[in-house]
Structures are given as C-alpha cells and as structure tokens.
C-alpha cells in the first residue's frame, strides 16, 4: 500500500517544518523528491536527511520569473513530474482594520497565486502522461476563519476552491487535485502566534494536543498514492477534531 517507488515529487517550501516532513515521508515511500525554498542551508539539511534521491531547486515564489522556470526545472532534474505538493506559505498576521495592502498582496501572491501557477504548469506533463497528483496544503482557518488572519484564511480558502475547479477539469485524465488542511501543528509558523491565540486554539482541540508535521505528511502520502486514485477535489482535514467538516 502507498508505494511511491519511481514517482517524482516536487514539494514547495521544503525547508519548513511541514514541508521537510512531507519530503521525508514521500522519500521514505520511494519517491524521488525535489524541494524548493529560499533558505539554502536549511534546504541542504533536509535533502541530506532524505532516505532516497533528493534535489534542491532554490526558488523565491514571490518572483514570477523564478516561478515560471520551476516546473521545467523540476522535470529536468528528476526526469518527470508525478506529484506536486504546494506547501509553501507565509503569514502576515494583523487585524483586518490594520492590514496593509502589502500584507494582503504578499500572502495572496505566495500562498494562492504561486500555487495556481505551479498547478497550471504541472498539468502540462501530467495531462500528457495521463496521471498525476496535485496536493495543496491549505489550512483549517481557510474554512473556519481566524482573527488576525484575513489574508491567510482567504488564501487558504482560495486554494480549496481552485483545487475543486481544476480537479473537475482533469479528473478524466487520471489526475487528482486535493487539499490537506492541517489544524494546529507544531512548526515555526505556529510558534509565531501569540500566547492568547495558542490558548484559544488549544482549548478547541478534542485530541487535547497539537498535531505533528509527520501526521500531515502521512495524509499527503495517501493522496499521492495510486490507492487514492478515486479521491479528487477533496479537502482532508488533519486537526485532532478541532473542526469536523
């Protein structure tokens, strides 16, 4: 079950807590993995930790020119592309009344627009190959909302709508497009939340604990597998019961 031997996977934001764990989990199942990011030292550390073949493709997703070259670069490095994981994400948290246009635009650009452009580019080889897996890492807050995260929540909700639309366009070509929506996971990103935000969120988790990056990675492995061929346009919530939707 869930064997990814010979599959080629690109994971954006591969140096972050969740991205690195996704890369390791795909690699452990036999996939060749390429990771992107901007922090070279951290990317090198992740690739060194992979059990299988790994590649580093440095890329700043807020740079449109770099973005255009990423999918062709991934295909060239790995000899194809079977799995795209749009994991890269940023936050610029502040109350809506204080949110600058720049805070809004930066988050939408990286979290949503870059994910769309990479999805569009990845479809070309996938449609031709009549198979493919596209997995967007969205967030529980894209469905529930969260104070201070109007931009982030909008970008994550946007990923879900985008994925459903694309999923219906390419389902007949053997390509699935799904989202994984983490709840409250222990990463550098959640460390940035205020104590008050953390307390409020922790109280809402029936499992009584934060999630681990490996628990998100496991969901990605499933959706990337051949066994998940009949699952498309879905959002798999991994949140300890924090929201049951």
């Amino acid at each position, binding site marked *: 079950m869930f064997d990814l031997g010979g599959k080629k996977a690109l994971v954006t934001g591969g140096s972050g807590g969740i991205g690195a764990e996704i890369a390791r989990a795909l690699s452990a199942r036999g996939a060749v993995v390429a990771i992107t990011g901007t922090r070279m030292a951290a990317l090198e550390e992740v690739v060194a930790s992979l059990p299988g073949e790994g590649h580093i493709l440095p890329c700043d997703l807020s740079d449109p020119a770099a973005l255009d070259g990423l999918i062709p670069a991934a295909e060239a490095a790995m000899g194809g592309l079977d799995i795209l994981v749009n994991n890269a994400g940023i936050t610029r948290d502040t109350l809506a009344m204080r949110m600058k246009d720049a805070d809004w635009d930066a988050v939408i650009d990286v979290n949503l627009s870059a994910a769309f452009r990479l999805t569009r580019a990845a479809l070309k080889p996938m*449609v031709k190959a009549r198979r493919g897996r596209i997995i967007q890492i969205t967030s529980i807050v894209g469905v529930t909302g969260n104070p201070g995260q109007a931009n982030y929540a909008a970008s994550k909700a946007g990923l879900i709508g985008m994925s459903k639309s694309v999923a219906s366009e390419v389902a007949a070509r053997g390509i699935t497009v799904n989202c994984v929506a983490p709840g409250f996971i222990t990463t550098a990103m959640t460390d940035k939340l205020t104590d008050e935000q953390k307390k409020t969120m922790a109280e809402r988790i029936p499992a009584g604990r934060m999630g681990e990056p490996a628990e998100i990675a496991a969901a990605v492995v499933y959706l990337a597998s051949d066994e998940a061929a009949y699952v498309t346009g879905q959002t798999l919530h991994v949140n300890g019961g924090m929201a049951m939707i």
Partner: protein
Amino acid sequence: MTDVAERVKKIVVEHLGADEAKVTENASFIDDLGADSLDTVELVMAFEEEFGCEIPDDAAEKILTVKDAIDYIKEHSA
C-alpha cells in the same frame, strides 16, 4: 515526407480515437469529433510537439476545426 494535412489528421485520429473517415478538413473537433474543451488544449500541445512550433493561447482558441489547425501550422512553420 508526409504533408502537414496528413500529419494533423493522424494526430487527431490518434488523440480523439475518431473514425478516420470523419476527420475531414471541415470537421469541428468539438461538434463533429466528440472532443471536450480539454481535448482541444491537448491537441494544440500535440501539434506543437509534432511541428516544433509554439501556438500562443489566443491563436489556439481559434483552432476549432481540422482545417484551422492545418492552416495555422502551414502559415507559421518554416
């Protein structure tokens, strides 16, 4: 060397699984040959590959029949 029209028709037959007799120059991909909109995008990709040319999106949208494809390729290939 096979001429452009024959190569285009061959791609259409192979890609859409259409009956060769139906793939006439005036046949519309969608109305006559059972293509869906994504098939037309794929056909354009296949033409680009076969003829080593790039067909921009605004031109691709106007390629609706077998003849449209043949004419475009004849005009734009060296």
